[in-house]
């Protein structure tokens, strides 16, 4: 009966958007391609009329196969929601190929919605947010059309009408403007739904029921590549750069913001003991030798250390994204740390590292004040080290072999050989360290791909092999080498793992350093009389000052900035933000109310003051009298004009009634009809101007019929206007003002046409 052609294209579009959203959330272009291919083929089959639904048994078999595949994925450690999403996508595709009736379409829509929900749990990117908005709009439109289709089909089955009884023009009339109506309704639904979504998003309480049903979401944005708390050399791969954002860091030196001109070494943790894993002899790794006195700070998150800054203080406002790490990063010389929310962590004074009590599962904002200077250990620790009561814990055999290398003349120019083994902290520590750093930087090559040296590196100690055979590697090798070389000659040294950010990481829009996994780095700290001095022996990683960004970099920085704001204000919106929002709303409303009240009071005082001034002035009375007289005169003139206008309009209406020919009717009816039939009067006057006059014996209809000599369009227009005249005159039809205006426009256009046809100079013509 009714043909709702818009439904299928919108359905396919909704399905594609849902699949795209899920593929975006799991970052799997292959999955997207797979799904789009099948959906596209199905759409082509349907469109070309070749489509024939799968038999049910076949669909069931394919479903079982998909289920089996998904179960297998669950046994591999993959997040459950990912597997559920994949299964939903497979189900959709199977359903597409066995679609028969409205029930199948409804199932497709529901599956698509569930898929988007699964994707929304997994990702919080801005692009996905936009996609979700488009998806919601399309799905609303699709659901509206679908409902119409279902109801129309139901009505067709319930109230059948023989096709010969149905006028096609009637059906067409029903579907006239259908697209416009659907757009309006979709707009209303979208607006209301979005407004409610925003209200719920902003005002719904957060945090109270977190995890009440257990953890279902994907693993958080873990630092899978890049920063790791474990440093070992058993896995040798071609390491890929990872651009996942770890943190946003805003740095102030004193009171001034650091505009990307400084390199930042954000310390994570330190490792100072190297050696083979006792369980697996071929595995060499770094560990922390000992943990000194730890300070537990759990109550207010305010860490204060013994350090005192002699120079400018470096304040860092850090926003750390969720990660699997338990470290909090900061510049060296941490003096003070304060978290925005209740968060328990431990500070290790020995190596100034800060460890969270639990994994950082959601964004964490904290402020750190550091000296960014070499820090000296506490007095007690210093004495212990100097007297070698705190020795080196790295494997002795490894150190022996590396010492041999270190003592080579070309490495430290013989300085290492002169270094005394009795006292650990000497003036020459720094110089020797510098030599070693220079040696590594100059003679070794930086690379992330060590696959071709896998066998060499695995044969024995990888660091020794790096120094003697491979002579290329990434920052861990360089830092490990330098640390061991220092330790081998009795210099206290430790490897620091963290992030290094240069000017390239600085975003001019958000005015902060954007720390990514790709910025993960290892460097060395060597204990000198000045304290723990930082050395970076990795070659090819020169300090790069902030350079002006190219156009593409600027665009990328802008998107990073938008993404940052999205993550900060939307993704990380929590209970505290909600409270702040409510408070600020409350404050704003109160302030507005108070200021408005104050303004009103001021106005009142001003008016009463002015009034008092005027009231006691004699000129006031004169002026008042003049004004009053003027007002009365104006009112009287207005009334007089209104009366004149009334009589004039009445007279015009009567003349019009007389012209049209119903002046024998009762007065009231005359006036009503004269108002309603103004258009007919205009028409006859226009015709009269061109000497086309209705004879008294002709009715209006007969007169209209005689105008056949006019162009067809004008003739038809006059006939239609005459029919309208009859409907108003005899049929009790009332023209509303809008319709009157439209009819008047038609008459004016007709008059213009007549003007063109019969210029006034033509000879007299009478019908």
């Amino acid at each position, binding site marked *: 009966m009714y043909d709702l052609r818009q439904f299928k294209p919108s359905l396919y579009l909704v399905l594609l958007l849902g699949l795209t959203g899920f593929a975006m959330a799991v970052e799997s272009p292959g999955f997207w391609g797979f799904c789009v291919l099948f959906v596209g083929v199905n759409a082509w089959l349907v469109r070309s009329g070749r489509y024939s639904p799968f038999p049910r048994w076949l669909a069931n078999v394919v479903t079982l196969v998909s289920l089996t595949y998904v179960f297998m994925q669950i046994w591999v450690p993959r997040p459950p929601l990912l597997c559920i999403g994949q299964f939903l996508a497979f189900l959709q595709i199977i359903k597409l190929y066995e679609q028969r009736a409205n029930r199948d379409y409804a199932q497709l829509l529901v599956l698509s919605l569930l898929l988007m929900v699964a994707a929304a749990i997994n990702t919080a990117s801005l692009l996905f947010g936009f996609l979700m908005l488009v998806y919601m709009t399309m799905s609303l439109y699709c659901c509206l059309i679908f409902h119409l289709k279902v109801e129309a089909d139901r009505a067709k089955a319930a109230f059948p009408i023989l096709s010969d009884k149905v006028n096609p023009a009637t059906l067409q009339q029903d579907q006239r403007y259908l697209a416009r109506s659907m757009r309006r309704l979709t707009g209303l639904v979208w607006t209301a739904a979005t407004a409610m979504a925003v209200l719920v998003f902003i005002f719904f309480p957060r945090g109270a029921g977190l995890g009440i049903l257990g953890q*279902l979401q994907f693993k958080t944005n873990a630092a899978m590549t890049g920063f790791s708390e474990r440093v070992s050399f058993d896995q040798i791969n071609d390491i890929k750069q990872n651009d996942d954002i770890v943190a946003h860091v805003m740095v102030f030196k004193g009171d001034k913001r650091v505009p990307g001109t400084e390199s930042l070494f954000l310390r994570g943790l330190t490792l100072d003991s190297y050696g083979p894993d006792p369980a697996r002899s071929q595995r060499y790794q770094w560990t922390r030798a000992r943990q000194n006195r730890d300070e537990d700070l759990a109550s207010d998150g305010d860490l204060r250390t013994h350090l005192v800054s002699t120079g400018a203080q470096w304040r860092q406002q850090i926003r750390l994204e969720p990660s699997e790490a338990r470290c909090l990063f900061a510049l060296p010389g941490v003096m003070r740390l304060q978290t925005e929310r209740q968060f328990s962590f431990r500070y290790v004074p020995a190596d100034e590292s800060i460890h969270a009590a639990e994994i950082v599962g959601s964004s964490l904002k904290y402020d750190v004040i550091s000296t960014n200077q070499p820090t000296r250990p506490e007095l007690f620790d210093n004495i212990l080290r100097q007297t070698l009561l705190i020795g080196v814990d790295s494997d002795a055999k490894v150190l022996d072999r590396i010492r041999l290398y270190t003592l080579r003349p070309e490495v430290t120019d013989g300085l290492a050989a002169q270094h005394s083994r009795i006292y650990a902290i000497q003036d020459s520590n720094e110089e020797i360290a510098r030599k070693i750093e220079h040696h590594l930087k100059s003679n070794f090559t930086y690379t992330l791909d060590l696959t071709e040296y896998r066998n060499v590196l695995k044969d024995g100690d990888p660091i020794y092999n790096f120094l003697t055979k491979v002579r290329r590697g990434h920052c861990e090798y360089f830092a490990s080498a330098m640390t061991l070389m220092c330790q081998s000659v009795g210099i206290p040294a430790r490897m620091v793992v963290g992030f290094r950010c240069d000017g390239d990481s600085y975003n001019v829009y958000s005015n902060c350093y954007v720390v990514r996994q790709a910025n993960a780095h290892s460097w060395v700290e060597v204990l000198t009389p000045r304290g723990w001095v930082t050395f970076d022996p990795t070659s090819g990683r020169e300090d790069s000052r902030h350079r002006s960004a190219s156009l593409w970099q600027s665009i990328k920085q802008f998107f990073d900035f938008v993404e940052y704001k999205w993550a900060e204000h939307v993704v990380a919106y929590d209970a505290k933000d909600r409270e702040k929002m409510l408070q600020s709303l409350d404050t704003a409303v109160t302030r507005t109310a108070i200021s408005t009240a104050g303004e009103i009071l001021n106005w009142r005082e001003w008016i009463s003051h002015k009034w008092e001034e005027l009231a006691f002035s004699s000129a006031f009375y004169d002026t008042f009298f003049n004004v009053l007289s003027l007002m009365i005169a104006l009112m009287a003139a207005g009334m007089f004009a209104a009366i004149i206008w009334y009589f004039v309009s009445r007279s015009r209406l009567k003349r019009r009634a007389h012209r049209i020919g119903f002046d024998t009717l009762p007065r009231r009816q005359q006036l009503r009809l004269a108002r309603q039939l103004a258009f007919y009067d205009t028409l006859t006057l226009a015709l009269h101007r061109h000497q086309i006059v209705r004879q008294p014996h002709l009715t209006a209809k007969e007169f209209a019929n005689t105008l056949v000599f006019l162009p067809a369009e004008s003739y038809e227009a006059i006939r239609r206007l005459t029919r309208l005249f009859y409907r108003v005159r005899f049929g009790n039809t009332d023209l509303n003002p809008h319709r009157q205006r439209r009819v008047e426009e038609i008459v004016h256009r007709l008059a213009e046409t007549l003007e063109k046809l019969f210029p006034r100079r033509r000879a007299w013509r009478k019908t």
Partner: protein
Amino acid sequence: MRVPMPSVKKKPSLDFSLTGLIYASMMLFMGLAAINSPANLLFAVFGLMIGVLLVSALISRIVLRRIQVNRVLPESIFVGQSSTFQYEFANRKRFWPSLSVTVGELTGAEAFARQPQAYLLHAAAGTKAAVPMQVMPKRRGLHQLDRYQLSTSFPFGFIKRAIERSQKDSILVYPAIAQVDRKFLSLLMSAELGGARMKPRRGGTDEFYGVKEFRNGENPRWIHWRRSARTGSLVAKEMTRVAPPRLLVLVDSYIAHRSAVEHRAVERTIAMAGSLITRALDEGFSVGLAVWSRDWVLIPASRGKRHARDLMAVLARLELNITADSNAMVENGRRHLRNGTTSILFTPREVNQTLIDQARGKCIVISANSDAANRWFHFPPEVDFGQSMPADQEPQAE
């Protein structure tokens, strides 16, 4: 015995559908998921779902507002014949359309086999839309259509809303019409049946009637030349016109015991009479009617569409007759019989000898259930005489 009425579905003014309940459950689930998970976007999805539910309640209300419904009823409808009503929907709203509206009659539905319902897909703002609806009338008589209900579950089918309106209309359902055998009509036209005579009238082309003055414009072939030559002025022949046969239909609607069988027979009788009247008038007969409906009703024989409507209207509104039996009907018919008029008595009872004697030479008697009647009158299979009487004339329990 009460005849079963068609079920009239009256929907509640506001109701949740099963889809709506499922949706509400999904919405609550989404809320729980949002509370459980730290993903803020789920709160947005939850809010969206709440917004959709609220706006669907609003839209269903908007759809039914300011919509005017007019019934366009056909001039005549017959029992057992499918007919088309039309509903004109005028959407008076300036901006919002009306979609997916169902209109169902709440009163007057007993006249039809099913509750009359129609479905409007769409009426844009400020426009009109007409929707046809097919009905199968099953009871004769005057039926009042008054209250009707507009309902919709637009936009998403979560909420069903309905409103009632009132608009009085009446429709007269005529008795069922059968196909009448031509032989029966020929029988009626035969002059050998008592009383049927050809009454010659002028103005035809049959036999010579007389002469008249020839006027300009008449056919010159009719000029009677001989007479014209004799009279000196042109005269034309006048020919006779065969007067159509006149019929007087007598309908015996007497019911003695108000059993279902009797009622069925009476309805069949009435329908047969109506069928003959319609067919005879179409063939050019003059037909009159004599029937008992609270009193004797006699309509003299005449022709024309209006006369046909009048006769059928009388039959449609025939009231229950428990007073005037067949003999009274025959007697009454005899009193009003004119020369040249054939009377036909339709009776629901078996024709007995006394009746034949009474009518001998004056009247044709046809019994509703006789073989002859079955041979001459063929009713559509949809007609059920057991249910075609007006609702207030239903048989009583046996």
